[in-house]
């Protein structure tokens, strides 16, 4: 963002620079791994077992995310605080989910019932049975 900053940033990089060239895993290799993972995540559902699908879909998404964050965004050689910062942001989302899902994800609870949502589920599922998938 700045001329001075420029020079400085380069010093900043210098320190990492070594890391990058000496022992930083090669970008092409990381890329290869990512593509393999992508193929697995597509193949997963073909097996047709639900939990396998979940693992191949979301487990692998997390692995991919980790690879990109650590090796492409260089969090592996960045100051620790940044990783904590980003993880904290993610943590807040789990908090949000934990606080909200009892009301939004569930359709009935302690002395309340979400009729509209249940009707929607029934309507759509019956529809699905009556008219089987005929798209693309």
């Amino acid at each position, binding site marked *: 963002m700045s001329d001075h900053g420029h020079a400085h940033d380069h010093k900043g990089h210098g320190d990492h620079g070594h890391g990058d060239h000496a022992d930083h895993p090669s970008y092409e290799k990381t890329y290869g791994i990512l593509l393999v993972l992508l193929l697995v995540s597509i193949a997963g559902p073909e097996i047709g077992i639900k939990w396998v699908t979940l693992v191949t879909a979301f487990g692998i998404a997390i692995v991919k995310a980790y690879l990109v964050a650590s090796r492409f965004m260089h969090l592996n050689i960045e100051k620790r605080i940044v990783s904590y910062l980003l993880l904290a942001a993610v943590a807040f989302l789990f*908090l*949000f989910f934990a606080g*909200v899902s*009892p009301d939004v994800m*569930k359709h009935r609870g*302690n002395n309340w019932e*979400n009729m509209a*949502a249940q009707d929607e589920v029934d309507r759509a599922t019956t529809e699905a049975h009556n008219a089987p998938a005929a798209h693309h």
Partner: protein
Amino acid sequence: MATPIHEHHGEGDHGAHAHDDHHHDPGFVQKYLWSTDHKMIAMQYLFTGMFMAIIGGYMAYVFRVHLAYPGVHVPGFGQVNPAEYNSLVTNHGTIMIFWVAMPVLIAALGNYLIPLMIGCDDMVFPRLNRLSYQIFLLSAIVLIAGFFVEGGAFGGAWTSYPPLSAKAQYNNTPLGAPIWLVAVALEFIAFLLGGINFVTTAMNSRAPGMKMFDMPIVIWMIVIASILFMASVGPLFAGAIMLFFDQTVGTGFFDPNKGGDPILWQHLFWFFGHPEVYVVLLPALGVVAEVITTFSRKKLFGYRTVLFTSFATGLLSFFVWAHHQFIAGIDPRMANVFTVTTVLISVPIAEMMFVYIATLYGGSIRLTTPMLWALSFLVAFLIGGVTGIFLGASGADIYFHDTYFVLAHFHYTFVPIAILAVFCAVTYWYPKMFGRMMNETLGKIHFWLTFVPFNGIFIPLFILGLGGQHRRIWSYENFPELSRPEYYSLRHFASISLIIMLVSQLIFIFNFFWSLKAGKVAGKNPWRANTLEWTADSPPPHGNWKELPTCYRGPYEYSVPGRESDYWPQDEKS
């Protein structure tokens, strides 16, 4: 990039005109809208905020008079019909929180103080800073535009709960509702940019020798507040986009008939809405910390205690949001969890209050105007704080929810934050901002004519709340329990107090502009304070210092034993 304007003398003039920023004479724009100087941008925020405060105050005047004297022709407005009434209360709330408290406490103070107090020449991203103000100004214009469109301004309360806010057939403001939403979203973007700038500046650009724990409390508070804002506003921003699609293209994110859920918005809103309270509270507390230490010539009682309690408050504030929804249809079991967290947040806040009070012990207290504002903040905020316990306790909230007790409670927190603390800050840093002292006598008159009527407004409203008077009601005529004569006398008292409070602001405005010209010249450090901004010229030139200061000690070294002078500036070698 546009070269920042170099202005030695004219800060005052910026001030004087900056509040009608929407002129279109290019020279004027170059000078007042296109500057990248953090002090100039702070002034822009300050005066835009004050301008919006006048609008918000006017709205309060209109609906208070209407409530006290139903059906009366309100001078300067006319008869208030239900739709207008809803728009007024909705936008009063929105403006006072998003267009007054936020820009003045975070943006204006943050922009002005962060570089000066940590001893650098500007924000790290001056152009980003300028952009953030321009987006903010745009958002303000968009919001006000909402009043002049077909159907009038949005009137679905500042919480904007769908389905009411989502469907024109329900809220009868087909254009007002989306415009309101767009304005708020723009405002969020402006403060995200600003916040990133603040946090990065404070993290990276401190003066040589200034360790993290040498930063003045107010800077810490503004940084923590910015981080709270960044971490909490995201879901609501996403929610705003979803609601906007509900309003404009008819999606059903919050529409139960289309598989959506109105409760989701409430959660998205309050997950932001509650931390937001602390986003504005913390900077106010920071200002008060600076002022009471300076005018009691005391070291802050436990600098680290204050920091850790504010960290704790900030973190806890993410775990309490649903106490706004106890009876709003969430699962009753969740209410118990949120009661615990909510009541527990009183611990760090109470602790912070104790620290501030303890700081006064053994001091040598000078009751200058800023000090009066600071003390009044503590007095009023204590009341606002303790009355919050009634509402955090789920059992009691069943009765109090959405009554005037709630309203009086949060005005006893927000008025100290957005009015008392802001006057405290302005009167305290005025000499630095404009190089001249404000008139003390006028200042004290203004103080008493603001603080006393403020209590006169909201103590009666507390009582009405105990009587079960609920909020956002156009007329009490239809509710026998609420239209008793003794209740009306309370409403009269509140409304008249409000008018007194509003009128007495003229004293401040006069004092402000009169002192620009006639106030006695302040010099660098009129209050004999320690923090770095007082070592720069008043007003500081562009770039703030000839050569940037170095920091040798913490900000609160007052009355150190063995020194004949009772203060010890941070940049003084020994």
